[in-house]
């Protein structure tokens, strides 16, 4: 590909050469072009330098700064950052039961959300990919994506209205003669809302994985006498697994980093890692502690991604 491009460039340059001989600027350009032609390593450097620099500066530098500042501290009186190296922030996180509980709650609800979304998304994606006619499939696609076109906040607030003590849910239950469900402002509500808002991020990769399964596999399975359930268990699920894992990367990491949903629909004990980070920066102005706590989800996600890679998730992205 790169060679082809260069070949064209060479032709163009030589064309210019014939018509504009003697112009120094053109000559210089031609020499430079020729030089590049002879030095492929320089070509690669010039081509890759901008994106690599961008990546290093914007992305890695921020992460490195985050990690480094986690080892600083804040002067308790003036609340200014003091660049004194210590691991005080980390010992606080690991020795305090409250922060452990917050980290466990965050991971627990992220895992529960991922599992719920996987269970809900699989049959839906299967129907979309293998059963629905093209026109119906397009309609379903729109339905899956429709919520993403409206504000995340609006959808979370809508759930708050549904789950409220005098909200739609309890009103409906009362009409049906059932007892009221008091799940407003609880961790159950947080789990429910997360499962709702991240569901499209699970459906799409699972759909992509299921759509790629060749029809011949199903035929072969049937020819060999497998019943429907065996086909699902031994053909569909193993081949859809990379899609499920890819979706779970989204649902898990999005839940892990969120702090708005717990604030809005959570109760008295619904703090997430993100809430502590937010209040440490925006309220206590204790950036080092926030940085230290923010490395926790980073480490968790790192481990998760390594496992996901083993399961082949990146081929389904």
């Amino acid at each position, binding site marked *: 590909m790169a060679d082809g491009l260069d070949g064209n460039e060479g032709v163009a340059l030589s064309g210019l050469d014939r018509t504009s001989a003697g112009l120094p600027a053109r000559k210089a350009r031609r020499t430079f072009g020729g030089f590049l032609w002879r030095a492929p390593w320089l070509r690669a450097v010039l081509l890759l330098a901008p994106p690599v620099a961008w990546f290093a500066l914007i992305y890695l530098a921020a992460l490195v700064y985050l990690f480094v500042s986690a080892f600083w501290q804040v002067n308790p009186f003036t609340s200014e950052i003091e660049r004194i190296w210590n691991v005080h922030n980390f010992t606080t996180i690991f020795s305090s039961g409250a922060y452990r509980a917050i980290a466990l709650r965050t991971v627990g609800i992220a895992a529960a959300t991922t599992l719920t979304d996987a269970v809900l998304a699989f049959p839906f994606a299967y129907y979309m990919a293998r059963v629905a006619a093209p026109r119906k499939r397009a309609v379903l696609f729109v339905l899956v994506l429709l919520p993403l076109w409206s504000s995340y906040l609006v959808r979370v607030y809508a759930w708050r209205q549904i789950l409220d003590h005098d909200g739609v849910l309890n009103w409906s239950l009362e009409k049906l003669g059932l007892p009221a469900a008091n799940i407003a402002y609880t961790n159950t509500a947080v789990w429910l809302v997360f499962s709702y808002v991240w569901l499209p991020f699970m459906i799409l990769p699972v759909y992509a994985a299921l759509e790629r399964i060749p029809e011949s596999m199903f035929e072969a399975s049937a020819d060999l006498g497998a019943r429907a359930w065996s086909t699902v268990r031994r053909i569909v699920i193993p081949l859809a697994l990379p899609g499920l894992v890819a979706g779970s990367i989204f649902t898990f990491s999005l839940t892990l980093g969120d702090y708005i949903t717990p604030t809005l629909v959570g109760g008295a004990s619904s*703090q997430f890692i993100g809430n502590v980070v937010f209040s440490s920066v925006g309220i206590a102005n204790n950036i080092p502690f926030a940085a230290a706590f923010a490395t926790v989800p980073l480490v968790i996600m790192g481990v998760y991604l390594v496992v996901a890679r083993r399961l082949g998730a990146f081929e389904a992205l």
Partner: protein
Amino acid sequence: MKRVIVVVAAVAALAVQAATAGPTGLPTSIGKGEGQLNLIAWEGYTQPEWVKPFEKETGCQVNAKYAGSSDEMVALMSQGGDSQYDLVSASGDASLRLIYSKLVQPVNVKLVPSWKQFNPAFQSPPNNTVDGVHYGISLQWGPNTLLYNTKLVKPKPTSWAAIYSPKYKGKITVPDNPIQIADAALYLSKSQPSLGITDPYELTQAQFNAAIALLKQQRPLIVKYWALASDEIDLFKNGDAVIGASWPYQLSTLKAANAPVADTIPKEGATGWLDTWMLSANAPHPNCAYKWLAYISTPKVQAEQAVSYGETPVNSKACPYMNKIAKGSCAQYHANAPLAYYKQIKFWKTPLATCDNGKNDCVAYPEWQTAWTEMKG
């Protein structure tokens, strides 16, 4: 061309400084407005009702940034805001932090004519005046009240014990704010006199631990720690909460929506806030800032803000204007209350390690913040 303008502006700025700075370093007169005024304010503190006439009168265009909590105001100021914003409407739990962090500068109260009309209790209160130096102009104050649903909470509560008792389990809400520890301490100062709490903002480690223990015991009873006033309004409107710590603002909003609510100052007294407009250390528009301080302190504007927000003006001449806007509002917000009324309110101030008793054994505010996060769990 651009450089010329900059030079001219710099010379002009120097001239203005030289003309107005007095021997103590405080300005002695207000110069020409800079055309802009940047504020960090509580939401509701810059209503068009009084901002528009100010802009018209002075030519200073008001740009406001709203903050959700005192802590956020301090964070905004310390993250470079002191040279970006001119004034900050700091509450008592933030003002000392701003002063000791040198994020605000002294002001000349003589340039605020209405200051002489202020209720004496608010002319030089300890949360904005240090060693006789004024670091701002008091604005408005209000009590943190006990709000309850009149249909579901019977009999009428008379003590803060109501929000610590299992009777209303799962229906209680309190602010998501570390300064709430002072409310627990205030209650303990009466219910457990043996702890010896005299000032809820100056707690020894033992007193502090007792307050945190009380709050931990309260946590399972709480439906939600509210972060925004509108959250608490929702909770009361939808029946998720029936009793909680509140501000007069929520009461008036809920009453306007015909919710069955009332509030009270319980027998233990209450904590309260006193807000101060404080001048940033490197305010870019000092003249407009002084113009604002003078304007916002006049009786009529004080009355407008008081009635609009539901709080009490510090200017003692504001009462007739308040009654003109809303009949009976002066008495409703205790703008004409006797001194004994203020005595039962413990105004917010930043908890410092140095207690007034001269010892150095009090728990400072950063520990309040940490303890609050850990208590919520």
